[in-house]
């Protein structure tokens, strides 16, 4: 048997179920790999909490009451609140914060049997594309530690790529699952907006935030997504009333006759040559497996950048008004009065990017600017969503690059927020529309850095995306490449 840490979620679940290994043994093995916090991927680890969960899982495995993923380890992005581990959302504002409850996604995965390894580093309040906006230090990319892992779920992506955990949760507001998955050579999926409960997810932009799994294959993502999703109608007012699905059941269809839409706007001048080569090869592979490529247009792709960076900060400025130094989180030590306490608390607790987005959001919502910016952005948002519906009249899934380049070097864009926003161009449209979308590794670009293929599907068709990705992964080996190991 290969080393335990190289086993997939599906393999570990089978080993545990067949009593080839115990949950405590698996947990112990992974905890040992977290020593020294490789890649700065973790923000909280508590081996007692992990081992207690593993013992519970072993008891259930013995009693025959095990869940489908009983004993398989997972780590959670630090925007999911957890009762037994600290939750900071990568912010100084929440340093030492303890939630009185578990997020629904965390609770559902535990119910399915998964054992929590710890909490994962991320950009502060999930705002960023490089994981350099964490108050607890940047995460580095396991493929080359001088490069960023992507963001905002950078800790999640780095931890999965480095085999520190077989699975992780992430959240995606404008690309925060897909882009780090692409940069770290792993597989991740953002389901349809409303599929996974937002209860207990620290809010950034509520009309966009969505949770999803990150792992090494579509097969593993299907198992995880099945456990994560399902209605949470009493606790999340935007939770979809759509029954939980077994996404693993739909992975067996060949790609004959599949129409893959290729948006020309995703292949313009800004696309790096090495990324284009890998994406073109992946599209050719899909054709070889029976798919047909259909040229489509998503004419408002470029507009999605200003539209997203108006809407998301507007929602953030409202959501983050709760951090006032009263009920939880940081409070400034010295202040003159209540207003001064708010101002100093927020100035000390928030980092630069978060302040910028709060300021931008407050501005576009302020008197005299609301119609020209916020309302206009919401109207273009509908046009972007309508463009996708026109496209899906011609194709079953849409495919293209996740990002214009591979992972850049740490520090390269950290002083230029707009450069970082522009790099989100291919992930923002599907986020604005609320469509399911995923990233899967399709090879390496220059310097041996991974390239991710993005697949976008119509509402509630996660199973179709996962099937396409799984069929591709059955025929290719890109998802099995790992950092530091020659292909």
């Amino acid at each position, binding site marked *: 048997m290969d080393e335990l840490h190289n086993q997939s979620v599906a393999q570990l679940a089978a080993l545990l179920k067949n009593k080839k290994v115990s949950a405590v043994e698996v947990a112990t093995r992974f905890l040992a790999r977290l020593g020294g916090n490789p890649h700065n991927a973790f923000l909280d680890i508590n081996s007692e909490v992990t081992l207690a969960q593993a013992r519970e899982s072993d008891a259930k495995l013995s009693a025959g009451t095990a869940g489908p993923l009983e004993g398989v380890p997972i780590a959670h992005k630090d925007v999911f609140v957890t009762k037994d581990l600290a939750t900071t959302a990568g912010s100084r504002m929440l340093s030492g914060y303890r939630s009185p409850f578990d997020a629904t996604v965390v609770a559902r995965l535990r119910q399915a049997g998964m054992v929590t390894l710890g909490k994962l580093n991320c950009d502060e309040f999930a705002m960023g594309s490089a994981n350099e906006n964490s108050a607890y230090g940047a995460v580095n990319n396991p493929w080359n530690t001088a490069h960023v892992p992507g963001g905002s779920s950078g800790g999640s992506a780095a931890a999965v790529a480095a085999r520190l955990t077989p699975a992780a949760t992430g959240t995606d507001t404008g690309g925060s699952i897909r882009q780090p998955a692409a940069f770290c050579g792993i597989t991740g999926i953002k389901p349809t907006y409303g599929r996974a409960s937002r209860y207990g997810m620290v809010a950034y932009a509520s009309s966009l935030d969505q949770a999803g799994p990150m792992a090494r294959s579509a097969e593993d993502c299907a198992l995880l997504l099945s456990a994560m999703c399902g209605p949470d109608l009493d606790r999340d007012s935007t939770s979809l009333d759509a029954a939980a699905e077994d996404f693993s059941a739909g992975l067996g269809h060949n790609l004959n006759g599949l129409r893959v839409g290729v948006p020309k706007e995703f292949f313009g001048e800004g696309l790096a040559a090495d990324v284009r080569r890998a994406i073109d090869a992946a599209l050719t592979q899909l054709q070889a497996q029976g798919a047909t490529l259909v040229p489509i247009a998503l004419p408002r792709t470029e507009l999605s950048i200003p539209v997203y960076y108006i809407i998301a900060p507007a929602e953030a400025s409202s959501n983050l008004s709760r951090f006032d130094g009263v009920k939880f989180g940081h409070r400034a030590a010295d202040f003159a009065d*209540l207003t001064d306490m708010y101002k100093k608390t927020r100035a000390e607790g928030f980092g630069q990017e978060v*302040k910028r987005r709060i300021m931008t959001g407050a501005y576009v919502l302020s008197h005299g600017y609301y119609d020209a910016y916020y309302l206009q952005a919401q109207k273009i948002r509908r046009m972007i969503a309508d463009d996708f519906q026109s496209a899906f009249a011609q194709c079953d899934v849409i495919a293209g690059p996740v990002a214009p380049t591979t992972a850049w070097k740490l520090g390269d864009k950290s002083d230029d927020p707009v450069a970082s926003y522009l790099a989100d161009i291919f992930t923002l449209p599907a986020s604005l529309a609320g469509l399911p979308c995923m990233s899967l590794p399709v090879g390496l670009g220059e310097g041996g850095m991974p390239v991710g293929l993005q697949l976008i599907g119509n509402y509630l068709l996660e199973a179709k995306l996962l099937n396409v990705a799984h069929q591709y992964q059955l025929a290719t080996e890109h998802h099995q490449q790992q950092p530091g190991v020659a292909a």
Partner: protein
Amino acid sequence: MALTHQDIARIANLARLDLQPEESARMLGQINAFFDIVTQISQVDTSGVLPMAHPLDAMPTMPPINLRLRSDAASEPNDRQANQRSAPAVERGLFLVPKVIE
């Protein structure tokens, strides 16, 4: 249309952020750089388009959820101690704040 130092000061007050002078100056430059890419949205003809506040609003197959309310029944236990565990200042179960009424 570029923002000014006065705009930054006004918004910082609205957003309850105490910005240092060098921080305000840097932010002014960065926010104006962002608004350079925002200008293109004013060129888009959106007449007759309804604003989309929410993805569920664009899903052809989903029933409207705007008015979904849960039943008015107590569902959560009263766990004041756990809820106040991370509060900066608490006394006898109350959140402490600076005096607001003279």
